[in-house]
Structure formats: structure tokens, C-alpha cells
């Protein structure tokens, strides 16, 4: 057999490269991860043979721009000639299946080939020199993306390990820039337990730090506070002030949950950085921690989870479910412990991440019991913690929606009623559950129509004297589906208060939109509106404590009553910040003109 042979893959290689680069990998940049993974796997295999072996990875950049070349060298197990033929055969075999199965390959040799293939995303020629630690000749392999390759046995014998040379292909020079390469090597290999060195421009340096002891034993992290925070800043690019160590019971998954130093968008993706067998697998692992844990950003290392085909995420399976549960438990346990021993620290965290804490409390009664005192709420007594609100020793009225709170706030304040805004997400649920958690706590849900509870009814005499005018007033607003009720309430400066039950509010918005809509939709809105049942009437409460209202209702109704009631109605809408329909705006216009007219008449009369 000649020592130099020309071969051709039995497959359409460009099709496969297309699958890899366009469908499976998120960016051509991952070629470096694939190379580093190959080097790591080779070193691991060699250490299996010889536990005393010390691994090393060396990367060299030469040239510049589109003339750049990259060399990566490891002192791992190396490949025999059979190994090389095997991985090529595997590529050929797996190309008959789809690309996902190709990447699902788990054997060392199979993965090695796939990893090498990914380099065609950035190079039109790959040269590999390899010497197996098990002996045999040194081999040179040259491959091109058109599917041709050559294999040659070398005369001289290399030291065991593998070297891969890549020549930059046009328009991919950005992946060969020293800065990018350095960043990516650190990025993927920061936790590797042996040195990665980079040489460029004659300068050589070690990329990854010696891994700290608390990586293997996260429970030690608290003793290295500043170091852990610095490490987090380096790895995650944010300056943290606090963290919680993570660990599963079997010790095969560990990590650090850094408390985010700022409030977070609840709908934002939770992006944690996860290392599988010390190699970065994902910076976007959103499923490694429970969803409620959005106040932390984590570094996690594991050797017990199964990566997806693209090796950029984990399969959602029972294993992951368990790990997620246990990591969540680490966080929860630490927070609960803080409630006992370090309330300052807990309070700082809660102030920043109230929403997150509330969502956790909703799901977990025991957690709620531990931290309820520190959860902040908006109330008619200001922004207070639940503990402070309970110390008022009053019934905590709460609203189930933000709209209700806005409607009730002013009236409630005027009457020093303690109303808590339950409108934000989770809050009504928490307030409803509070009596189960705290002995003697009294919480009650309040509806807009309930404000009337604190109003004083008229006495029999007042009722009799205002009856006629009250009926006329009620009639005046019937076309707006609004009822008029006479009451006495605080503050007396407030002549009228408009309240809108939920159904009525929906109907109101349907009718307003109907005025603006094209025909096809206007008729649909009409059908939806006519289907509304239940309490679709709004109520205008008029305050007999108010001097003007009192005058209006003393004696028989004046002929101007209709206009005045309409004006009070329009005024109450404006005071309550309700947008008005065209009809209601017309009331206001007409009313103002009438008022001007009357005042001119009365001047003439003088």
C-alpha cells in the first residue's frame, strides 16, 4: 500500500456542512469549542490510560486578515490510522441520516470527526497531524470541503497527541482575530483543570486560571467571598454583591447563584452559564433553574446532564427536572436561613427582587411564612412592607386589580381606610392567602362598588325631601346606563364619585371602540356588547355633604336639574380619569354653553 492516497468521502460533504452551520450551530464561532472539546476528550482518554498524565492545550495564531492560520495542539491520546478511517466512515454513515442524529453521536471517535467537520465553517483546508499514544505510525490527514481528502503516513514519529491546522477561508477572518480566539478559549475552557496556552505575535500566555477549590466543593465558597465575587464578574460580566452556593445531593452538579444587583424584567430570558464536564455548554441555559429563580444569574457545572444535539442546551428529561429541583432547593434553603440569621441581607435582596420573591411565595407556603414580613406592598398608607402593614392592626382591604385600586384609592384615603393594591401580579393571591400564614391577620377583597359600604345612607327625612329630585336625576343618566345614588361621605369637597363595576367597564370600552371601528368589526362588537350580562350599570354617587349638591337637592327638582346632573357626571368622569365617548363629550360641550348662557341671563336680570 502506498503511503499517500487520495480518497473521496462517499457523501455530499457541502450539504452536511450546510446542515451544521445553518441549522445546528448557532454561529461559526463554535468551531473553536468543537476543537477544544476534541482536545479535552483526547486528554481525558489519555488520563484514563495513565492517571499521572498532565494535559495541556496549545493554540497558535499566525498571519493576519484572510491569511491567518490557526493551530491547536493537544497531548491527548491521539489517533491511529484505523481511528482516522473509522471517523470518516462514521461521517459517511451518519450523513445518510439527518444532521441531528449526526450530532447526537456520543463515541469519542465519532464526536471527534463531527468536531473536525465543523471547522469547514471557517476553513477550506484542514490539516491534522496525529500520533496515537498506543503506538503505530504518525498520520497526516488533509481534508477539503468538496469531499476530497488524503491520508499519509509520516516518516518520522511525532510525540503523542494531535495537531490541527486551519487556514482562514474568505470572509471568516474575524474568527481568527487574537482577541476573539482568546475570548472564546476562555469562554469555553475557563473551568478546565489543565492549562490552555495561546501564542500570537511571539507572545505566549496562559488563558484559563487555575480552577479554585470551591469549584469542586461549592459549600466552601462562602469562605472565599471576594474571590467568588471577582470570579463572577469575570465570567458573567456583572459586578455582584451577593451569591448563594448551589449543590445537588450527589455532588455531580454544583455552582454559584449570583444575586443580580438590579431588578429584572420578569419576562426576560434567564440566561445561566453551564459547564458540562468542565467545558462551557451554554450561556443561555434557561431551564437549569426553576422559573421563579429570576433574581439570580448562575454559573453551573455538571457531569450528569445530557446535552442536546447541537450541544448548546440540555434535554428536558427527568434528570434535568431533578437537578433543577435540587438547585432551586439550595437557593430556597439559604433564603430561609437568612430569615433566621441575617435579616439585613434578606431585606436587601427582597427590596431588589420583590416580584421574584412574591412569585416564589405564591408557590411555596413555607417560604411565604418565612419572608412575608419583608414583602413590600403599595397601600393607601404608602409603600410599606407587609410586616409594617400588619402592625397597623387593621383589616387589610385589598383590591384584585390595579383598576380597582386606582378607583378606590382617593375615597379610601379620605376615610383613612387601609387599602392594599393587590393589582400587581401575585399580590392579590398573597393577600388572600395571608390569614392561613399569619394568625389573626384579617384580609378582605374590596370591589369598587364596596366603597359604598363606608358611605352613610340618608335618614328617612332626608330621603323623603330629596326623593323627587333623586328620581329625576336617576332618569337623567339612564341613557348612559348610569344610576344616581345620594349618600353622605368624606371628603365633603368631593361632590360626586363615579364607580364602574368590571362588566360595565368592559361594556364601556366596547362601545367606545365601536364608535371608531370599521363596519365588520363594529357589528362584532355590537354582538359582544349585547351579550354582556350581570352588572353593567355604573353608579354616580352624589355627596349630600357637599354644599352645592345639597342645594341642588333641596326642594323640588329645578328645570335645570338634568343639565346639572349631566355636568356632574361628566365632571366625575374627568376626575376619575375615564376617557369619554363622543356622546359624553357632547354633554360637556352642551353643558358649558348652557352655564354661560344662564350666567349671562342672570346678569341681565340684575
Amino acid at each position, binding site marked *: 500500500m502506498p503511503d499517500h492516497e487520495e480518497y473521496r468521502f462517499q457523501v455530499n460533504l457541502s450539504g452536511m456542512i450546510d446542515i451544521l452551520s445553518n441549522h445546528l450551530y448557532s454561529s461559526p464561532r463554535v468551531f473553536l469549542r468543537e476543537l477544544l472539546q476534541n482536545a479535552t476528550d483526547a486528554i481525558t482518554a489519555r488520563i484514563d490510560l495513565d492517571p499521572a498524565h498532565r494535559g495541556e492545550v496549545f493554540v497558535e495564531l499566525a498571519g493576519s486578515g484572510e491569511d491567518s492560520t490557526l493551530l491547536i495542539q493537544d497531548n491527548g491520546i491521539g489517533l491511529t490510522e484505523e481511528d482516522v478511517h473509522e471517523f470518516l466512515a462514521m461521517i459517511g454513515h451518519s450523513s445518510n441520516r439527518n444532521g441531528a442524529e449526526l450530532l447526537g453521536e456520543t463515541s469519542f471517535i465519532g464526536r471527534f470527526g463531527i468536531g473536525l467537520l465543523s471547522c469547514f465553517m471557517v476553513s477550506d483546508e484542514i490539516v491534522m497531524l496525529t500520533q496515537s499514544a498506543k503506538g503505530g505510525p504518525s498520520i497526516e490527514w488533509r481534508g477539503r470541503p468538496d469531499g476530497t481528502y488524503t491520508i499519509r503516513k509520516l516518516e518520522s514519529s511525532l510525540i503523542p497527541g494531535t495537531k490541527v491546522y486551519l487556514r482562514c477561508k474568505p470572509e471568516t477572518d474575524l474568527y481568527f482575530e487574537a482577541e476573539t480566539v482568546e475570548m472564546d478559549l476562555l469562554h469555553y475552557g475557563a473551568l478546565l483543570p489543565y492549562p490552555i496556552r495561546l501564542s500570537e505575535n511571539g507572545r505566549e500566555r496562559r488563558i484559563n486560571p487555575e480552577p479554585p477549590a470551591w469549584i469542586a466543593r461549592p459549600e466552601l465558597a462562602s469562605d472565599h467571598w471576594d474571590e467568588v465575587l471577582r470570579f463572577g464578574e469575570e465570567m458573567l460580566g456583572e459586578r455582584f454583591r451577593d451569591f448563594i452556593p448551589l449543590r445537588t445531593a450527589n455532588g455531580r452538579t454544583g455552582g454559584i447563584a449570583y444575586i443580580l444587583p438590579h431588578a429584572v424584567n420578569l419576562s426576560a430570558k434567564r440566561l445561566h452559564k453551564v459547564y458540562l464536564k468542565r467545558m462551557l455548554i451554554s450561556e443561555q441555559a434557561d431551564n437549569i433553574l426553576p422559573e421563579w429563580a429570576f433574581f439570580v444569574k448562575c454559573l453551573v457545572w455538571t457531569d450528569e446532564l445530557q446535552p442536546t444535539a447541537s450541544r448548546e442546551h440540555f434535554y428536558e428529561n427527568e434528570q434535568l427536572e431533578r437537578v433543577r429541583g435540587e438547585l432551586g432547593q439550595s437557593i430556597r434553603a439559604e433564603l430561609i436561613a437568612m430569615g433566621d440569621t441575617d435579616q439585613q441581607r434578606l431585606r436587601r435582596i427582597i427590596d431588589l427582587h420583590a416580584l421574584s420573591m412574591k412569585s416564589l411565595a405564591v408557590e411555596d407556603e413555607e417560604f411565604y411564612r418565612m419572608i412575608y414580613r419583608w414583602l413590600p406592598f403599595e397601600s393607601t398608607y404608602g409603600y410599606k412592607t407587609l410586616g409594617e402593614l400588619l402592625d397597623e392592626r387593621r383589616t387589610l382591604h385589598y383590591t384584585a386589580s390595579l383598576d380597582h385600586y386606582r378607583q378606590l384609592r382617593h375615597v379610601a384615603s379620605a376615610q383613612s381606610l387601609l387599602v392594599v393594591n393587590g393589582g400587581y401580579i401575585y399580590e392579590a393571591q398573597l393577600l388572600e392567602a395571608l390569614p392561613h400564614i399569619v394568625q389573626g391577620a384579617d384580609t378582605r377583597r374590596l370591589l369598587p362598588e364596596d366603597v359604598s359600604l363606608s358611605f352613610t345612607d340618608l335618614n328617612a327625612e332626608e330621603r323623603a325631601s330629596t326623593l323627587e329630585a333623586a328620581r329625576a336625576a336617576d332618569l337623567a343618566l339612564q341613557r348612559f346606563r348610569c344610576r344616581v345614588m345620594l349618600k353622605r361621605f368624606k371628603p365633603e369637597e368631593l361632590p360626586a364619585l363615579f364607580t364602574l363595576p368590571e362588566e360595565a367597564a368592559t361594556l364601556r370600552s*366596547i362601545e367606545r371602540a365601536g364608535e371608531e371601528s370599521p363596519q*365588520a368589526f363594529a357589528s362584532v362588537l355590537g354582538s*359582544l356588547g349585547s351579550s354582556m350580562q350581570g352588572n353593567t350599570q355604573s353608579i354616580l354617587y352624589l355627596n349630600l355633604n357637599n354644599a352645592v349638591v345639597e342645594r341642588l337637592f333641596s326642594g323640588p327638582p329645578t328645570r335645570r336639574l338634568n343639565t346639572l346632573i349631566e355636568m356632574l357626571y361628566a365632571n366625575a368622569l374627568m376626575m376619575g380619569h375615564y376617557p369619554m365617548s363622543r356622546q359624553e363629550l357632547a354633554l360637556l360641550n352642551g353643558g358649558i354653553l348652557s352655564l354661560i348662557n344662564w350666567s349671562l341671563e342672570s346678569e341681565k336680570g340684575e
Partner: protein
Amino acid sequence: MEDFTLEFEDLMEQAYDLPYSATKIALLERAAEIADLAGDIDSGYEAREAIVEAGSYGGFPMKAIVAYSWQLGQYDRNPDRFDARTLYWNYKWVIDDVPSFPDVPAEQIESLLQDLRSRYESYGVSERTYWYYRFRLSMYMGDLDQAGEALKAFRKLKRDEMSDCSACELDEQVRYLLRTGKDEAAVKKAKPIIEGRQRCAHIPHVTLPYLLLPLYRLGRGDEANAMRANSYRLIRDNLSFVQEFGEHIGYLSVVGPHRALPLLERHLPQVESHEDPLSRMMFLLNAAALLRKLNRSEEAFVLNLPPSSKFYELADKPEELRTKLEEEAFATVSALDTRNGNDYYHKFAEQLLKERG
């Protein structure tokens, strides 16, 4: 004016930070209101665009329809002022929800479809999306023959910029197979979705729950069981998946009714006031099936409902509760069938209660 801008921006920002929820909608509605008060049509339009999204994706279809109607009216008055592509894209979300409301007569739904058709035509895209939505809407309205015809017409046309993503289209065809009783074909068609090769913001969320029982019926209970937890995790916190909550309850009712109780406790209070009558009905049917199953078994059970639930008083009277839920569900069943002019949902409901109850 200055104050208005500040308050508007503030409300929009607060809303942006929240997941789809009643709170988010309330903030956006408030933003739309103050824009209207200030007479600022552009801001009102912006806020309503967000309401349409949050409503369609978050389980508030009525809010979405109302906001969208207003938007479309503004657009017609002033077509150069707004982005037609976004507006017309969102039309699909809105029209998809209309048949859920039995009070909207069939003629009005038909005229919406024709309105969409002519608007898309003048916008310069093919009739593909029109046929696709005719397919979907016919299916929801229990007319499977018409759905089949529309599906054929749709398949003949090429994708264009108004087409739904391929995962959504695939899902809807899986649903058609399921509704026409073809379990095996449906599961086969859903394979790319199950394997995660076809996915989007709603897929596989709305696909997997409907595959649980078919898999079980096909003797592939292990696969259903393996899929269940992840499927539930995907939908659990979003109120637009009320029907899917029901589907999970229905599945558990068949394979292990006691495991469905926490789901019922969690979701019934959310669903009882849900805007969408069709979704509510589907949920209540499954809930009733579960209670029927539990009531028939000898084992005692406790249902823990919060005091704010309108069914609170019935929590310890499961047979009365079941009757009540069934009554409510069947009221909607009848209303839908009357509107649709067929007896599809009646048969559907009877069949569901028989299999799962």
C-alpha cells in the same frame, strides 16, 4: 401635555416588564385611556397594539378584539400613518378568537373572513392565509367538511409573508386529524413537533396536551407519561392555555384522577372568570369529567378552593359542584351549536365525558 407623555411612557414601560397577565393589560388599557384623554392617536394606537398582543397571547381575547377594532378604524381613516404589515399580521390573531364567542353570529364571522380576504388582496398577498383561517375557523365552528375543503385550497398555494410559521401550520393540521378521529396519523404528523424540530412561541405548548390521550389510546402510555410534565410546565403560567389545562386534567382523569386535583385547584379559580367562553367550556367539561370519575370511586378526596372562587361553597360538595360545572359548560355548548347550526360540540362534550368521566 408633558405630564401625559411621562405618565404614558411610564405605564408602557411598567407593562413591558410584565409577563402576559391581567395587570399588564390593565396598565396598557390605562395607557390607551390617557392617550385618548390627551387626544394622541399615535400613542393610543401604540398602546392598543400592545393590548392586542398581550390579549391574544395571554388569554384576554375580548380585550384584543376591542383594541384591534379601534386600531383598524384609525388605520382606515389614515392608512399612511400606520404600519399595514403589523396591523394585518395581527388580524390573524384576532379573527382566530372571534368564533369562541357564541354571541357573534356566523354571518358576522363570515364577513370578517371576507374583510380579511379583501384587505390581504389589496395588500398584495395570496389567498393562502384566507384559506388557512377559513380552515381553522371552520374547524372551531364544528364544520369539519368545510374545514377539509379549505385545507385543500390552502395546500395548493405557496407560502408568503402573511403565512403563519410552519410549526403553527403543522400543529393546526395535527389538530384537524385529531378532531376527525385519526389518532395514529395525528401522532405521526406531530413527530417533528414532538422531537422539537418544529417549534415556535406556541409550539409545542399547544400541541403536546392533545397528544396525551391519543398516545394512551394507541397503547403508548409510556410516551404520554414521559411527555406530560414538560408539556404542563410549558403552559402552566399562561392563561391563554386554558383549554390545554383542561386537556391535562382530562388525561389525568383517565390515568390517575387524584393527580389531577392540584391542577383543578390551581386553575378553576382562574378559569371561572376567563373571557373566552369556548376555552372556559373546554376546561369545565374536563373538570366535570374528573369530578365524575372521582365521585364514582370509593376513595375520599378534598378539594381546596380559595374563598374568592365562586365555587368556594361547593368545594366540599363534589357532586353538586360537578352538576354546576356541567351546567355551565353545556350552556356554552348549546349556545355554540346554535350559532354554528350543527350539533358538533354536543357530541364532542358527550364523548369527552364518556371517555374521561
